[in-house]
């Protein structure tokens, strides 16, 4: 039965009080551990078509008569369009339409950053469209630009009030503490750089708008476009069958979708608008830079008595301010905490969510500081973390937490320190570092799935979610197969089309599996119940003695055993339709994911080169559905995190606000040659309070602790404290010099 509840909803660490219609979730959880299908490694359902290049991405959509759009962008960090004349562009060969500022959502007169979209042109070819941009006559009025986040905060150029939080008496606890450590940490702007750039193809079919788009949230795009264009939501159909990566940057419609929709309306032709790689590096969103001034205080026995932080999120022109202070507030048991977070509004490209926004940045600062504290206390960093274990989230119980078990499993990796140190030589110093991970990932309602069983014995799961490369299609098939009692091959999953399935949540915030999985299981259970109802009538048995196991309908006494597909022939053209919904999250509980990384790193003390040699990643995300896909998620997160830590930085000209790193040779992402040995372990313990599955999300947790674990390994190897990401050679050499000075030796140049 549907029920109306008032609850807190979490997306990407953001909480909102909302009314939610939820359905009951009467299914009992399965026992822990690997089952017949769930918990066993499964090859991706859609691996073959992706590997063979048959999967049709948005980038591959070609509609008859389709035009190509190019976007005119501001060359200035802050300026206003005084006048614009699109007519010269419209007269050029191949050009069919143009749209100017305020004529489509996202195209604006005021450009708040270099690269802000202003106008767009549609032509027969992309080359013609781009050439036509040069013909647009535009006059700019230059406005004052603020590019420095600290200056922005001082001048009051901020997004909203500062966020303040306090528990206990921070000042007093610091004053009375035996040991106090402080540090300022800075994290840089990094870019998602999904391999498929942001793009959409829009086509009007009568008064219906079809949008093919590379998105993490087909329903979100549908609703946003309908709202902005004043259409009934079901007049907008959003399709995303295969998607070339998002990492948080593709949760909304974007100017490229609105420009394509408007140009399609004006020209009467389908229009494709795809960002180039250079636009992707400029205007497609980013993880914002942060500045973190942190304090930790402890008594001499290692009890953390106070934690404090003053944070600046350097947000750019748009986006939202993520909880950089989050880890500091909730990772450790600490009675006295004070944080303040300022959100600078500077004239740089807008922030978009990027894989655990806020917590990635905040964990770097906090977990580096905790290691500094361990050194000041002369305590083992792992011991210090264990000692300050939080058994509740400031009074709210955890739905499940196995971080202690993660620490247990980390021990054997941590114990390799002597052996690792022994491999150091005169130039290459080796060390081991660790960091803990805390993040959300519980998902939530609503999300729905349908199942359809036909006389051929096949089981279709239909839900309008998207698989952005995380393997959710496969995980859903495993869940349905397990519940139904059939082998994995018998289940097909259809996703990615708002007009062909019920609502499903966004693929962000590590929420797809924990949100969708329980709905899929419920839908499979619903269909299975109906099959057994029919079987009971057919064989004149009580339904409760019947079950489906390994593709056969069997009775408890063993007298009946009939292949499911044979039995289902009885259906003829009849179909069995099941439906399922995601039930509510446990009330009064904090649903979080946990983990530990132990990193072995080597530092060349002469050149400042840093190499990550080994990463042990231990994660507690509830039940694991597909251990193979889960391992891939962890490796992917770790590798992306290594990029964030060592090589990636979006650079900007501090005078003009222009982005300097617009190509993939300037913006340096990890290659196969940069990958260390990665050891991946899961606690794999279902969260007994969370849904009929007990699974949490895994997309984000693996990227959270890696930077701090690397920095701590560097400290272990060299005694140097790095304070900035990326840990460039410059930053590494600075930290080495500082460490030398601290030891009293004269600093070598």
């Amino acid at each position, binding site marked *: 039965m549907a029920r109306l509840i008032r609850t807190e909803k979490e997306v990407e660490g953001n909480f909102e009080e909302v009314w939610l219609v939820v359905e009951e979730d009467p299914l009992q959880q399965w026992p822990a551990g690997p089952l017949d299908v769930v918990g066993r490694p499964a*090859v*991706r359902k*859609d*691996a*073959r078509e*992706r*590997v*063979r*290049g*048959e*999967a*049709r*991405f948005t*980038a*591959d959509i*070609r509609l008859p008569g389709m035009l190509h759009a190019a976007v005119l962008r501001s060359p200035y960090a802050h300026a206003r369009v005084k006048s614009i004349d699109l007519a010269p562009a419209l007269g050029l060969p191949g050009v069919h339409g143009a749209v100017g500022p305020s004529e489509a959502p996202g195209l604006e007169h005021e450009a708040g950053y270099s690269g802000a979209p202003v106008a767009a042109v549609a032509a027969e070819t992309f080359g013609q469209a781009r050439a036509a941009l040069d013909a647009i006559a535009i006059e700019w009025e230059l406005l004052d630009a603020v590019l420095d986040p600290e200056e922005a905060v001082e001048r009051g150029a901020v997004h909203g009030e500062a966020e303040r939080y306090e528990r206990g008496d921070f000042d007093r606890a610091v004053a009375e503490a035996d040991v106090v450590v402080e540090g300022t940490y800075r994290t840089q702007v990094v870019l*998602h*750089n*999904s*391999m*498929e*750039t942001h793009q959409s193809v829009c086509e009007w079919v009568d008064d219906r708008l079809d949008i093919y788009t590379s998105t993490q949230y087909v329903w979100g795009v549908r609703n946003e476009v309908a709202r902005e264009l004043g259409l009934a939501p079901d007049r907008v159909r959003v399709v995303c069958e*295969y*998607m*070339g*990566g998002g*990492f948080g940057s593709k949760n909304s419609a974007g100017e490229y979708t609105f420009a394509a929709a408007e140009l399609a309306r004006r020209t009467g032709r389908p229009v494709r608008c795809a960002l*180039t*790689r250079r636009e992707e590096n400029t205007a497609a969103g980013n993880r914002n830079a942060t500045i973190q001034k942190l304090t930790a205080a402890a008594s001499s026995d290692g009890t953390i008595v106070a934690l404090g932080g003053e944070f600046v999120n350097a947000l750019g022109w748009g986006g939202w301010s993520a909880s950089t202070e989050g880890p500091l507030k909730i990772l450790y048991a600490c009675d006295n905490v004070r944080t303040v977070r300022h959100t600078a509004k500077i004239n740089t490209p807008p922030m978009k969510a990027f894989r655990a926004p806020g917590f990635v940045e905040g964990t770097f600062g906090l977990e580096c500081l905790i290691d500094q504290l361990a050194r000041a206390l002369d305590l083992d960093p792992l011991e210090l973390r264990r000692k300050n274990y939080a058994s509740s989230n400031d009074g709210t119980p955890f739905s499940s937490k196995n971080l202690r078990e993660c620490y247990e499993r980390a021990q054997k990796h941590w114990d390799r320190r002597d052996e690792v140190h022994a491999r150091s030589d005169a130039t290459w110093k080796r060390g081991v570092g660790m960091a803990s991970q805390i993040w959300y990932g519980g998902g939530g309602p609503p999300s729905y799935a349908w199942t359809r069983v036909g006389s051929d014995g096949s089981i279709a799961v239909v839900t309008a979610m998207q698989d*952005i*490369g*995380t*393997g959710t299609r496969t995980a859903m098939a495993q869940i349905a197969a397990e519940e139904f009692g059939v082998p994995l091959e018998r289940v097909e999953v259809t996703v990615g089309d708002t007009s062909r399935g019920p609502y499903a949540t966004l693929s962000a915030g590590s929420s797809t599996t924990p949100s969708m999985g329980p709905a899929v299981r419920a839908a499979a259970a619903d269909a299975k119940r109906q099959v057994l109802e029919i079987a009971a009538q057919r064989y004149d048995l009580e339904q409760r003695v019947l079950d489906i196991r390994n593709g056969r309908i069997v009775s408890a006494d063993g007298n009946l055993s009939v292949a499911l597909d044979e039995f289902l022939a009885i259906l003829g053209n009849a179909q069995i339709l099941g439906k399922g919904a995601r039930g509510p999250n446990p009330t009064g509980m904090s649903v979080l994911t946990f983990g530990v990384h132990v990193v072995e790193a080597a530092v060349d003390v002469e050149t400042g080169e840093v190499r990550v040699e080994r990463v042990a990643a231990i994660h507690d995300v509830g039940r694991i559905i597909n251990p*193979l*896909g889960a*391992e*891939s998620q962890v*490796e*992917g*997160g*770790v*590798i*992306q995190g290594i990029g964030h830590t060592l090589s990636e930085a979006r650079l900007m000209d501090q005078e003009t606000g222009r982005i300097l790193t617009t*190509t*993939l*040779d300037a913006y340096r*992402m*990890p*290659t*196969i*040659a940069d*990958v260390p040995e*990665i050891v991946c372990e899961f606690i794999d313990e279902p969260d007994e309070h969370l849904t009929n599955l007990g699974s949490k999300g895994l997309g984000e947790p693996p990227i959270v602790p890696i930077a701090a674990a690397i920095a701590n390994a560097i400290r272990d190897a060299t005694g140097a404290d790095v304070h900035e990401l990326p840990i460039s050679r410059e930053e590494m050499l600075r930290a080495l010099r500082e460490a030398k000075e601290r030891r009293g030796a004269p600093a070598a140049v």
Partner: protein
Amino acid sequence: MPELRLTVNGADHRLDAPIGTSLAHVLREELGLIGTKIACNEGHCGACTVQVDGAPVLSCITLAHAVDGDVTTIEGLRDHPLVEAFVRADAVQCGFCTPGQVVSAAALVAATPEPTTEEIRHAMAGNICRCGTYPKIEEAILHWRD
């Protein structure tokens, strides 16, 4: 327009294309071979890798008219054992870089049937995977004939 002759996956094509058209563009837009992906269009990522006479080439920065040799795209490698090796190893997440990875890997194993880890890393370093499937790619190539 100047005539363009290409042999792609064993089939001969004659088409018209302006001078300056990239091979990637011709493959995708003229021949409908969409397995070749374009992710940067300026030679920095490897997504568009095809083979010309067996050697890996970045088709986005290769002029179609300058191609001198037989072109093999992912469509011509669909039955290569590497495909199953990638599938088995889970060497694919979003899959946008993957066809290019397979084409590069196929060139590697043709020249070096039993590549070492070092050789794999050297040959594959030009193929970026933002999803980070690298460990699985390495595994797939190490065990491509299993």
